[in-house]
């Protein structure tokens, strides 16, 4: 199954977390979240880790990709 992609680049807190929350409520267990700043990365990671997700971070130029699996 492919990962559900959430593009939260250019958005500031709490929008990225709200978008991830919405994606989780749709029943997705495999996410790929794109953010473009450290604050969003920290907030999304804190949110997902607290909900028992295993997360991996890949930093690229201009964007940070957070991969999350239940």
């Amino acid at each position, binding site marked *: 199954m492919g990962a*559900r*992609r*959430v*593009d939260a*680049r*250019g*958005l*500031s*807190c*709490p*929008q990225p*977390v*709200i*978008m991830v*929350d*919405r*994606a989780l409520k749709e029943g997705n267990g495999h996410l790929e979240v794109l953010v*473009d*700043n*450290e*604050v969003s990365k*920290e907030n999304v990671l*804190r*949110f997902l880790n*607290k909900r028992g997700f295993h997360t991996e*971070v890949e*930093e690229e130029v*201009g964007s940070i990709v957070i991969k999350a699996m239940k």
Partner: protein
Amino acid sequence: MRENFFASRSGIVVVGVIIGISAAWLQYLGNPANMGICVACMERDIVGALGFHRASVAQYLRPEIMGFVLGSFFVSLLAGDYRPRGGSGTLIRFFLGMFAMIGALVFLGCPWRALLRLAGGDGNAIFGLLGLIAGVFLGVQFLKRGYNLGRSYPQHRASGWVFPALMVVLLFLLVFRVSFSPGGPIFFSEKGPGSQHAPLLVSLAAGVIIGGLAQRSRFCTMGAIRDVILIRDFHLLSGVGALVAGALIMNIVLGQFKPGFTGQPVAHDNQLWNFLGMALAGLAFVLAGGCPGRQLFLSGEGDMDAAIFVLGMMVGAAVAHNLNFASSPVGIAPFAPIAVLAGFVFCFVVGLTQRERLNL
């Protein structure tokens, strides 16, 4: 990747304690009572010093504000967080800032001062804080219905220097006490809260240190309440709790803790308007994504939309004093209710209409 200690639970608690202790200590060294740090009051004093309002008791170029921006600027450069950006609902943020300031000046303080007033024993602050919570709760309802001001976009690297540079100019005017005309600005209050201040270098140093720490820890008084209501996250709230605890202990040690409702410094006891003023401010902070302190720290790290919010707050301070919206220790001003009502109408229209569909 280096871990950011200040983004951890212990990190934000340490930052909160440092802010609380510094604020109480600044009061001990000369800042007005329960106003060791008040972003709204201090911006209002800066606006007064420049002559944009003429409330003669509220005129001083507060170095804490300059320190907040510059501390955040330097630390964000060092940490690689400096990222010039802008273009997200810019004009709307200006007016959100304006109404946030008007609401804060009806209560007589921003969320930071509400916490410090509580830590100083001012019972009226409880009604302000309840208002703040109510305002944030309202704002969260808009967030849940898809409210957002849209994406921001990267800007040229030098554009993020403009706001810190403005702070350097203000600092220059303060250090050299520049006078532009006989009897004209820069004004320095001779009595009242504007005349009370800690030594310049201490205020500036405290501001720079807090600005740097807050940039790293993302400290935000509004976000603390918002995150609890929105996602049951207590991370930022633990920092706010630490601030109150730090200030409370320091106030007791320094003999500054004076519990009561009447005769509290730079405060009034009209509880309905303490509540409503702060509710308006809280709502505007949610819609703009940060408390007034956070907006300064964001301005330092290159967020030009946050800088516009700050400028909106400054214009709001001038408007509030010139048009008789701002409270005084005697009570609220004649036109305060109309201004607060107008602010709520503006925030509701913004909250309901700014719902760009974001493609997840």
